[in-house]
């Protein structure tokens, strides 16, 4: 397996953010529990997890709003663990945007520049540049309460970018926007990040958002990092049940190892009443309990008489029409349910399959994976 602690294109780069065994406790609660992480220049790095997983606390420690209980944080090689926020060479865009309500849009953007005593002419130029970057020139003289949610988000982004930080932290940057605006803004964020060449570290609970924007994702759970990987690898090769279930939907089939040859493993499962063949290179012990994971879109419908491994039969119990695809829920004789998707290629085509149809499903050994955690 490749080294997932580094992105594929950064084999020799030095990390710009180095988090070393950081723990943060509030009373008895471990908000962040022994986390180590390297983030490299130019990455669009996401901290993904459900609420309370510690992702925001980790971000706040990077910003300097919280101090780690144990461990060190290095930015660009410098130990910043004990530096106050106003001395750290990074900026943050807060979830609430935290725009200064008594200042105009311009003044909000110029705030950080005034703090570093940038000469007025240069400052005005920079503010103009930022207004143009996020396309809010028209609203320069307005106060935050006179803006829409989307406009406010842009002001917040412009303000946090105004000082040209090397690293930008974003706490749920799209959380307050409605769905349509969110999708549109995702790409804009990525564009801006690529254009400016800044390292983005984003906290989000939305796996789709993380998948769309990130170069790498750290999936967090209970204060710990579950898996760090590129979105594609995280999706295709989840290392744990948790990771598999968190990203997208997946079928999980429990069983035990009966045979391993080269990179092929055979798993006997009572849930499907048969054998599963999976490509898996790590050595496993016979009789070991494992879970086979297969994504719904990797499953094919085959003629009823098909035989062999990775083949199951069942009855369609539910159909969910999502527009682009339909999701079918198939109940196996054991009672186990398996989901598969079919794209709706033809508009209003008569359903080839419908409720209570018997179907036979199959998938390739290299289209599924084995989870040991």
């Amino acid at each position, binding site marked *: 397996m490749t080294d997932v602690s580094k992105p594929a294109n950064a084999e020799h780069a030095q990390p710009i953010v180095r988090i070393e065994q950081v723990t943060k406790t509030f009373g008895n609660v471990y908000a962040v529990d022994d986390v180590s992480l390297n983030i490299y220049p130019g990455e669009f790095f996401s901290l993904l997890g459900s609420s309370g997983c510690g992702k925001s606390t980790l971000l706040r420690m990077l*910003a*300097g*709003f919280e101090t780690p209980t144990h461990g060190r944080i290095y930015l660009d090689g410098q130990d910043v663990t004990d530096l*106050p*926020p*106003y*001395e*750290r060479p990074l*900026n*943050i865009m*807060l979830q*609430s945007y*935290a*725009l*200064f*309500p*008594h200042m*105009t849009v311009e003044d909000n953007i110029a*705030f*950080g520049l005034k*703090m*570093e005593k940038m000469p007025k002419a240069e400052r005005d130029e920079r503010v103009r540049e930022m207004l143009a970057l996020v396309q809010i020139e028209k609203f320069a*003289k*307005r*106060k935050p309460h*006179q803006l829409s949610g989307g406009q406010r988000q842009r002001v917040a982004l412009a*303000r*946090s970018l105004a*000082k040209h930080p090397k690293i930008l932290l974003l706490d749920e940057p799209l959380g307050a926007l409605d769905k349509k605006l969110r999708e549109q803004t995702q790409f804009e964020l990525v564009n801006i990040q690529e254009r400016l060449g800044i390292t983005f570290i984003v906290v989000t609970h939305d796996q789709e958002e993380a998948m769309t924007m990130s170069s790498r994702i750290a999936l967090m759970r209970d204060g710990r990092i579950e898996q760090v990987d590129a979105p594609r690898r995280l999706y295709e090769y989840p290392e744990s049940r948790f990771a598999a279930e968190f990203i997208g939907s997946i079928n999980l089939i429990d069983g035990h190892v009966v045979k391993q040859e080269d990179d092929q493993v055979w798993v006997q499962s009572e849930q499907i009443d048969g054998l599963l063949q999976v490509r898996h290179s790590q050595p496993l012990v016979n009789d070991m309990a494992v879970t086979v994971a297969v994504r719904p879109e990797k499953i094919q419908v085959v003629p009823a008489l098909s035989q062999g491994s990775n083949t199951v039969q069942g009855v369609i119990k539910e159909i969910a029409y999502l527009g682009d695809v339909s999701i079918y829920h198939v109940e196996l004789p054991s009672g186990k349910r398996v989901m598969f998707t079919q794209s709706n290629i033809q508009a209003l085509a008569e359903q080839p399959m419908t409720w209570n149809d018997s179907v036979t499903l199959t998938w390739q050994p290299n289209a599924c994976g084995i989870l040991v955690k």
Partner: protein
Amino acid sequence: MSGGQMSALKLAQRLPGAAFLSNGRHWIIGLPWLWLTLFFLLPFLFVLKISLSEAVLAQPPYLPFIREIEDGAMTLVVNFGNYMLLFEDPLYRTALLNSVEIAAISTLLALIIGYPMAYAIARAPQAWRLPLLMLIILPFWTSFLIRVYAWIGILKNNGLINNTLMSLGLIDQPLEILYTPTAIYIGIIYSYLPFVILPLYATLIRLDDSLLEAAADLGCRPWKQFLTITLPLSMPGIIAAAMLVFIPVMGEFVIPDLLGGPNALMIGKLMWTEFFNNKDWPLASALAAVLLVLLIIPFVLWRHYEQRQEQQGEAR
């Protein structure tokens, strides 16, 4: 003439009685107006009326506005002499300036002392806030007059402060505090401090912490954060607090009378003198009317300025 009829109709709808019959909601909105009319406007009109009449030793001690000359012929007599006197006699101007000075200095001092207290309470752990606020409000459970009286015992020459300092050997001669301007300021600030702390607390507690985090992140040091974020955003509380001190202190009578020396010439005391010693109700009323106008003008200007600023932002 349909336009005229329309406006007449609208007018009718605005009358409280009509509003009551037609729409309950208007009635609710009308209540504060009714209250203001009954307890502010009407009394003020009485004061205004008396201020325009002439003092006379009678019951009541001023001449009626409308007098009968003979056989049912009436005449309306308006006397501006009281107002003329107010502007001619430097005594009143001095008293007014003194009052403004004392009120302004007290307001400033009360804000300087009250702000950190309000800030500390707002920043205190949740469980502490209510008890701390209670401690601020607690003195209200004792009569205002008694509390001010108590200061005499504390400040006088052989009072608590002087006796303590002298027994500690820090001073040989008692400090002259009672019956000096210092005593007035102590009394005023002591009495009005809760009125500063409460509105400031209400503003500060609503202040979003993330604003300070954002400022810190943008390179703003704590002291500067206070100046650029906390202070401007607590301005509504500061203005409310300032008005709650400045306005009543302008007319303050009890504290300067009890704690202040004879030099404490304030408008409230002058009103007392005109009313009781000179039995000149009209002049006292004129003084009250002028004071009210002087207090209302800055308030109206401020409101006007606020609204205009708001509209300007909207227009752009």
